[in-house]
């Protein structure tokens, strides 16, 4: 393993994993406790439209993904708050529309779409330095928003109705939260790919929830778990010559399942809490 770090791409891969873990650990906690997992999945998949647009109009597919992710987050937030369309219907519509647009755009763009697979399934080994800077900037933005709005997001996630009753602008904050999910999708896209983003948004946070009832600690733990999973997955994929994104997800999924099984067994032994 150690000899692998002599290569620049390996160091970039590690840095990408660490940067991705920060965003997915923090935002993932909100995704899990606010129960917007499938909505986040929809935002992630809709970003494929932007990737396609990037190929078609010859600009960075990552920027295209960011544009589409933010647009779909805002659309989803407004549609679910201002119309009577059920949330899961809106989720499904946007999910499919974004993907369909992406397919059409890529079909229209002349010739072959290079590293399309890496956007779909991630390739942590090919993350260019420019994307690392973007990831770092987005991490800073996400961290800044969470620090500034910590008490608002806590109230929003816990009891939205009470939030409205005490005069908090819940709809605006909800849109902001969805936009943070969109930015996190962009941070993660190079590491695990847009199809597997949802796993990185969910698994580390869900695992952290098993160990703490304090939201700040949960975020910290989720970031640490994310780092362990990306580094562990990266090493496994290197050692076994497997696709890195999928290996990271499988590793975290296995650990999460194991922790659920262990805690179920553990709870049977321990008396129920009052």
């Amino acid at each position, binding site marked *: 393993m150690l000899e692998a770090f002599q290569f620049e791409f390996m160091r970039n891969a590690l840095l990408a994993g660490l940067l991705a873990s920060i965003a997915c650990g923090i935002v993932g906690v909100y995704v899990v*406790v606010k129960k917007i997992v499938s909505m986040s999945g929809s935002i992630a998949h809709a970003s494929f439209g932007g990737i396609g647009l990037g190929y078609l109009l010859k600009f960075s597919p990552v920027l295209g993904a960011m544009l589409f992710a933010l647009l779909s987050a805002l659309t989803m937030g407004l549609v679910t708050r201002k119309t009577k369309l059920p949330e899961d219907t809106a989720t499904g519509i946007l999910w499919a529309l974004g993907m369909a647009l992406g397919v059409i755009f890529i079909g229209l763009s002349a010739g072959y779409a290079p590293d399309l697979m890496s956007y779909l399934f991630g390739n942590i080994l090919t993350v260019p330095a420019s994307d690392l800077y973007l990831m770092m900037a987005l991490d800073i933005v996400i961290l800044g928003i969470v620090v500034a*709005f910590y008490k608002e997001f806590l*109230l929003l*996630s*816990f*009891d939205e109705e*009470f939030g409205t009753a005490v*005069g908090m602008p819940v709809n605006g904050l909800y849109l902001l939260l969805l936009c943070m999910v969109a930015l996190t999708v962009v941070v993660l896209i190079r590491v695990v790919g847009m199809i597997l983003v949802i796993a990185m948004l969910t698994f580390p946070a869900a695992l952290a929830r098993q160990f703490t*009832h304090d939201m700040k600690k*949960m975020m910290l733990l989720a970031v640490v778990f994310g780092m362990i999973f990306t580094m562990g997955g990266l090493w496994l994929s290197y050692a076994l010559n497997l696709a890195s994104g999928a290996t990271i997800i499988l590793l975290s999924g296995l650990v999460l399942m194991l922790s659920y099984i262990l805690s179920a067994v553990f709870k049977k032994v321990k008396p129920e809490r009052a």
Partner: protein
Amino acid sequence: MSDSDVVRLEHIWVSYNSTPALEDINLHVKEHDFLGIIGPNGGGKSTLLKVILGLVQPDKGMVTVLGNPPARSRYKVGYVPQTSRFSVDFPVSVWDVVMMGRYGKTGLLKKYGKPDREAARKALERVGMLDHASAQIGALSGGQQQRAFIARALVGEPRLLLLDEPMASVDSAMQTGFYELLANLKKEMAIIMVSHDIGAVSVFVDKIACLNVQLYYHGSKEITPEILEATYKCPVQLIAHGEIPHRVLKEH
């Protein structure tokens, strides 16, 4: 109109998908009033509280809370919802839940300060939950959670307290203490408590109204069987519960 009107509802109509929930509701609540509203489930009790909070917009009619539209008076109103639908493993402590009640006094982007923490400590002490401040909210019993939510409503130093079915999760051992708390609170604020439990409401409140889409309000504590029957749309017998202090109302 008088300055002491804490809540004024004038000809309020609310419907959900053309099913009427509230019809032509008129209600005046004055300072230090303790109003009990009883009525069957689905009779619009929670809706009425949400109208006062500005969470539900009436189709017709005028709402004034402390001289302003509800949305502008929210920070002066304490609200204890019927049930909180949070998941039991939500990562938040009792302390943090109570602090949420200070939002109206703090505002967007501002951090909670020393006065907020002091208010939270007092509110928790008042409901006897200070020892549980660091517990995770979902780990508490239903009655303890209810007290934490009352503390969350009190911490903002409200002038009006709205309680939605507070007895639903208060265990019987806690009831007396709960009523004593309310008796104390009414010296400081107006209280509106809704319940489908007639016995629970009638003992401590000063005024009773019956609500089943329409409001039958007589400004006194005496409910006649006629009012009850009009509210519940069926013959009603008044039953006195033995386990709590009670007052037998009019012979029927």
